């Protein structure tokens, strides 16, 4: 019902709009993940510890996961 009203007013499917919003949010999240990688590199420059390598790997894995989720959003939605 609401979907039909929305479609008649905006001439676009509510789910198409939702898809756009989700993909946009995921792209923003990907940018955030990039900032985290940058942040980790900045922090490891200030403090050099034996676990720094592991922390960098964590940040890169997180970025990769964010990229995969953006890709999934584009594919399945």
């Amino acid at each position, binding site marked *: 019902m609401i979907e039909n009203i929305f479609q008649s007013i905006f001439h676009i499917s509510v789910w198409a709009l939702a898809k756009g919003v*989700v993909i946009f949010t995921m792209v923003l999240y990907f940018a955030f993940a990039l900032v*985290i990688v940058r942040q980790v590199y900045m*922090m490891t420059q*200030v*403090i050099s510890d034996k676990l720094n390598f592991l922390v960098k790997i964590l940040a890169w894995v997180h970025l990769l996961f964010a990229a995969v989720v953006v890709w999934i959003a584009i594919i399945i939605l």
Partner: protein
Amino acid sequence: MADIYSSESGPKGKVKSKLLVEARNEVYHLIANAGSHFGSFIPKPKNFKFETQVEKEEIILLLRRHWVTNLRWIVIVALLLVAPLVLTSFPILSFLPARFQVMAVFMWYLLVIAITLEEFLSWYFNVDIITDERIVDVSFVSLIYKRISDAEIEKIQDVTYKQGGIVQTMFNYGTVYVQTASEKPEFEFNEVPNPALVVKVLERLRIEEKQEELEGVIR
């Protein structure tokens, strides 16, 4: 007299009197018996350096917030991790098409990972360092702002600590306040383990600095 002037070479290559060596050994002895605190209280850390560390400056103590303070966000993250399981009993997202439900779960877990990473990075990289020359406070606020403050040991005027509440007493952690005559008048070592011991170490280092001054040891 003979004791004062019988000397040996210290870690900086400067000549140290027996009194100074004893004062330093007393500091080492204090921190040696402090026990392990899962990375929150590290005496003489190996393989650790910080950006503004000068050559031959020796790190005496590396402090982070007590590991117990992490339990709050660890419990929250654990609850957030199992939260999507609730959807099987209470299908509150059932009005969404299946593909959007899958995406919602993915987005949820991304959020959980983001919270975990931020909390861990905040704990791991916000450190307080006591060296043989100064105290250093490394703070990262939000994602892009960093602040590194330091004060020389000889500029320390007063050291106190606050420990209150059941949890802090049980796990022996608290906040150490260091008043200084440097640009930053007060340093706070928040929720660090063994606050009384940290105060003692700072006191010993101040005595050592005064002794160095009396003996005219050149830095």
